[in-house]
Structure formats: C-alpha cells, structure tokens
C-alpha cells in the first residue's frame, strides 16, 4: 500500500513539473530542488549527481532526471511513475494545441503569428547551440575567476565534425555516428 502511495505521489509531483516547467530540461531543475526539500527524497548533492548523469547519458535531459529521481525513490516502478507523470501534462496540452492549430490552419492570423514564431524559434535553437558551445569551448576558473581559456582541441573537433557532415560524402552518415566518433575522440585524447 505504501508503495502505491509513493508511486502516486511521484506521478503527481512530476506531473506538476511537467505542467509548470516551460522550456528545456534545465527548466525542471528549480522544481526538482523544491521537490527534494519538501519530500526529502533526495539531497542537493544527490541532485547534482543526477544532473551530471542525465547530461552525459542518451535521452533528453529532463526525461532522464525524472527517471533517475523516480528510480532513486521507488526502484523501477518509481522510474516509470515519475516519467509518466512528467509526460502526461505535455500530451494533454499539446494534443489540445495541435487540434486547435489544425482547425485554424487556414486562418490568416495564425499564419501571421507563425511567420513571427519561425525565425524566433530558429534563433532560440541557435542560442541554445551557442550556450553549449560556450560551455564546451571556454574553460573558466583557474586562478582568477574571470579568466577564460579556449579549449582548442574541442573547438577543432567541432569544426572537423561540422566540415565532415556538410561538405564531404560523410554527410550521408547518421548524426549519431558523428556523436559516437566524437565521444571516442574525446575519451582517447582526454579532451
């Protein structure tokens, strides 16, 4: 019985995250901090580990974190409950919005709104790419807080991947092939 309660609570807590976290997986972190403090399911240190693992394993980060917390709390069934909780609000909300958009596809207003959304969405994707780029290519820290150094090997690797996938016959390869190759290069050359 307690297990059922725990699973129900996990589902509801993550449904809350799914309903209120807007944006990428990083947007869920403040909610998870609160959840840890309120429920006592995990500490801030646990959360740091979970974020690190979620970032370095396959799968969207937000989903990984939900699965991890759920597993931590109640094993495999907990992982399932937390993940289903996270996705339930999305399914409901998106189905409603997609239905609405399908209905008003011909509307000039919807068309005009999307003419603004498309370039903005492209810009946000570019900005997200830049954020990852800064995190990878700029090494902070050292003696003074505001000194930066460029991580040249990582930058060279990114440039090589970019050139290969756009301008050589290798562009027919699946993107995961480039990711796997880059992972191997990183591990071998200790980037």
């Amino acid at each position: 019985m307690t297990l059922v309660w725990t699973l129900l609570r996990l589902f509801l807590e993550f449904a809350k995250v799914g309903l209120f976290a807007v944006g990428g997986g990083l947007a869920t972190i403040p909610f998870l901090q609160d959840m840890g403090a309120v429920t006592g399911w995990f500490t801030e240190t646990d959360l740091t580990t979970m974020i690190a693992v979620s970032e370095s394993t396959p799968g969207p980060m937000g989903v990984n974190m939900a699965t991890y917390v759920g597993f931590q709390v109640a094993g495999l069934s907990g992982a399932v409950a937390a993940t289903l909780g996270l996705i339930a609000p999305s399914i409901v909300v998106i189905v409603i919005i997609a239905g609405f958009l399908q209905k008003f596809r011909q509307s000039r207003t919807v068309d005009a709104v999307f003419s603004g959304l498309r370039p903005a969405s492209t810009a946000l994707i570019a900005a997200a790419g830049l954020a990852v780029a800064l995190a990878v290519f700029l090494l902070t820290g050292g003696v003074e807080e505001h000194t930066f150094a460029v991580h040249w090997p990582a930058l060279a690797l990114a440039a090589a991947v970019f050139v290969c996938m756009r301008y050589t016959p290798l562009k027919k390869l699946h993107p995961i092939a480039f990711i796997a190759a880059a992972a191997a290069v990183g591990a071998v050359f200790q980037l």
Partner: protein
Amino acid sequence: MNIYCDLFLTFAKVGVCTFGGGYAMLPILQREVVEKKGWAIDEELTDYFAVGQCTPGIIAVNTATFIGYKHKGIPGGILTTLGVVFPSLVIITAIAAFLSRFAEYPVVQHALTGINAAVVALIASSVLKLGKSTLKGGAAVTIFLCVLALAVFGNLADLDAGAYGPLGQGLELLTSPAALIVLAGIAGWLIKGVFGGKKGGEGR
C-alpha cells in the same frame, strides 16, 4: 511495419540519439522524421519547437507528442512520447542501479566533452538548414537577429543572480525563451496580419 510500431520505434531511436537538452534532438529529428520518414518538413519542426518552448512541459516531449499527434491522432501522440522516453527509462535505470558514480569517471567526462563538441556542430548545421526555409525576407531576418541577441544576452548576463535588482529580474523574464516566442508571435501578427493585411486591402 505497422505505423504505430514505426512511430514508437522511430522516437525511441530519437531518444537514444539525443544527448543534453531538447534542442540536441533537432538534428536527429531532421534525419529520422523529415528526411527518412517524411512525417514533417523543416518548417513544421520549427513550429513544434516554438510551441513546445512556450507551453507547459519540456521541449523534447512536447515536440514528440506534436509530431505523433499530427500523424496519427491521440494514439500517435501517446506512442511517440512513450517512444522518446523509453530509452531513458532503460539506460538511467541501469546506470542508477549499477553505476551511480558514472558521471565521475574521467573517461566519461572526456567522452562527454567530445559529444558536446559534436552536438554544437550538429546544431549549427541544423540551424543553417532550418534558416533556408524560415529566414526569408527582411522581417524574418530582423526577428531572428533580435531574438538571438536577446536570448544570448539573457544567457550570458546571468540576470537572475540578483546583482541587478528588479531591473535584472525584469530582463530575465523578458529574455526567457517563452517570453521571446510570445513577443515574436505578436510581432509576426502585427507585421503580417495587421499592417500587411491593411496594405493588401487598401493598396489596390
């Protein structure tokens, strides 16, 4: 293959190939969903990301639901969403059970640096592909540049650190992706719907 199986399996593949935030999913979606399956076109992907960005839920899940729903209604939306989270369930459960120190191994960190470098290149390439269809005309390019500048500024300035007081908090809100999407939607509506519409009506 049964279309429902296909939706689930394709999105499970997208889930496996995504490292990091939902944006890292874009290159994989372009390959699997646009190029291989033809379930969507590039422009639609930007629409889904735009909507996924300013609606509840994380982008990766929202985008998966959107594509599935568009293709096969509610069952499609549910299956693609379950597909995209399925690999996480398997992989994270295995790691949490056996390898909780996984992220601390130096080899994992080095590999991750390599992965992230590749992800930057993949996203850059995807943006160039998307830009071809989404950045046509002066208004679109202007919106693109404004949103890019504000989003990068918001990322860099670390406004929520509290150093700038209420002004910083206001800017933080303004530069959040959801707010930028809403503002761009209003801009598009004004440019094309209101003023553009008037011009069309009165011009001739």
